């Protein structure tokens, strides 16, 4: 057992690399799945919370929308207002552990982690996405209604795609947060990176060296994910040029135009 810092680091790495690797994989799996499911939960909650109620609607619809909105805001408030580490304990020992008792320990941990992260992330996503929906100007909703599209059609074809694009940075940020915060799930023995690091560190009492390695891995993960997300965001912005079609004749001939020359006027009236 080498005494120097770097000696210790390389010793732990060579002896426990597979622990770190497995922990890293589980961390990525649970945080990615948790973010995706959380996004879906948030999407549904945001959709339900933005259902408009008209005076002319049936009393039953008005009542159920109001009831739903109370339930959903309670969910959002509670899960944003308590630490995930506490939520994990309450949910896990409040029945989840028993419900998953048929599973092998590793899978039980992974499934529990995904469920807890999803519910927690869903609460944040719901507010993020609702903000995104509200940020799309209401004129587009009216434009779509005015040609006869239904509320649902407008939501899915017009408002949602824009809302999601607007909140992409915040969604990516939730993923990064989840990579880091999934570490608290070691309290319910999920075999993620932090939990594995503890085992590696505890064997020879080399906490500094082991958690130095852990820190580096977390940083590489979040750094890489941040870069990838920024790349995707840029792709999603869409092209800033378009093709000008030969007017009048619908000919295949076309000119490629960049946004700088966008004020060129099209063909006149026939």
């Amino acid at each position, binding site marked *: 057992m080498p005494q120097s810092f770097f000696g210790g680091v390389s010793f732990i790495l060579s002896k426990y690399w597979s622990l770190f690797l497995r922990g890293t994989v589980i961390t990525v799996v649970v945080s990615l799945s948790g973010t995706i499911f959380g996004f879906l939960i948030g999407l549904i909650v945001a959709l339900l919370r933005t259902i408009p109620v008209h005076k002319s609607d049936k009393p039953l619809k008005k009542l159920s929308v109001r009831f739903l909105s109370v339930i959903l805001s309670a969910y959002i408030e509670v899960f944003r207002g308590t630490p995930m580490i506490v939520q994990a304990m309450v949910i896990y020992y409040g029945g989840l552990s028993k419900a998953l008792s048929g599973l092998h320990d590793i899978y039980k941990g992974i499934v529990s982690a995904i469920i807890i992260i999803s519910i927690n992330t869903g609460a944040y996503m719901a507010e993020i996405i609702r903000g995104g929906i509200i940020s799309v100007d209401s004129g587009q909703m009216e*434009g779509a209604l005015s040609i006869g599209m239904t509320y649902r059609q407008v939501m899915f074809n017009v408002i949602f795609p824009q809302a999601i694009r607007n909140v992409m940075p915040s969604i990516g940020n939730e993923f990064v947060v989840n990579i880091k915060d999934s570490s608290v799930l070691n309290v319910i023995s999920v075999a993620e990176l932090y939990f594995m690091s503890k085992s590696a560190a505890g064997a020879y009492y080399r906490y500094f060296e082991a958690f130095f390695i852990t820190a580096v891995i977390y940083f590489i993960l979040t750094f890489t994910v941040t870069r990838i997300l920024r790349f995707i965001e840029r792709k999603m912005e869409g092209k800033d040029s378009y093709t000008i079609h030969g007017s009048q004749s619908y000919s295949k001939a076309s000119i490629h135009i960049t946004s700088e020359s966008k004020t060129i006027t099209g063909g006149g009236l026939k």
Partner: protein
Amino acid sequence: MSNINNINTNNSNSNAILEIVNLEKRFGENNVLRDISMSVFEGEVVSIIGSSGAGKSTLLRCINLLEEPSGGDILFHGKSIITDRQSISRYRAKVGMVFQQFNLFNNMTVLQNCVVGQVKVLGRSRAEAEETAIMYLDRVGMYAFSDALPRQISGGQKQRAAIARALCMNPEVILFDEPTSSLDPEMVGEVLGVMRYLAKGGMTMLVVTHEMSFAREISSRVVFMDSGIIEEADTPDVIFTSPKKERTRAFISSIL
């Protein structure tokens, strides 16, 4: 030039596309529309003028059911659209609307803007919808910009695309709410040109506008609204040169 033969012949409402009957609209305590009655006949261009806050936009929005009327009725070919909420989609497709702020879908190209409604509301195939869209985009001089996103084109082009989007639904009447009011002056002409072209082609139109010379030129009738009521409705010549009501006279002289 204007078609004046159907003023005061409202007793035979058989060919009225739209009949507005004692329409009321309140926002809380604010009585924005009071006892509005008017009809729009096939092929007519009816302009609505009046100072800001008169209730012109609210009237158009009520007609398209973007606002819930507080009282009265709106008849489309003699049938109330207020009691029959089932067919609201089909009704709205037949009553196009063009907005001051264009209200194009920002996530879609000009062509897609014109296609989506046809596919979703009218159930047309994509190919058929695209063909129709291209035809109308060409008519408003926007075919060249089919692939452009709204943020890539000028205000005048956006408004022409919005008109094409409305036309693609084959509406029986189009409501225009100050279609040129948010345009730079040099772009007003291209949009008015398209509207003039539609009017000549026999399109039934209900136009809220501050472009008085345009209203005078293309309207069959001009409706002057003042604080929530129709103060006077007559031929453009009467409204602009010899209005019968004092308020109309005051408004006309204030803007000419």
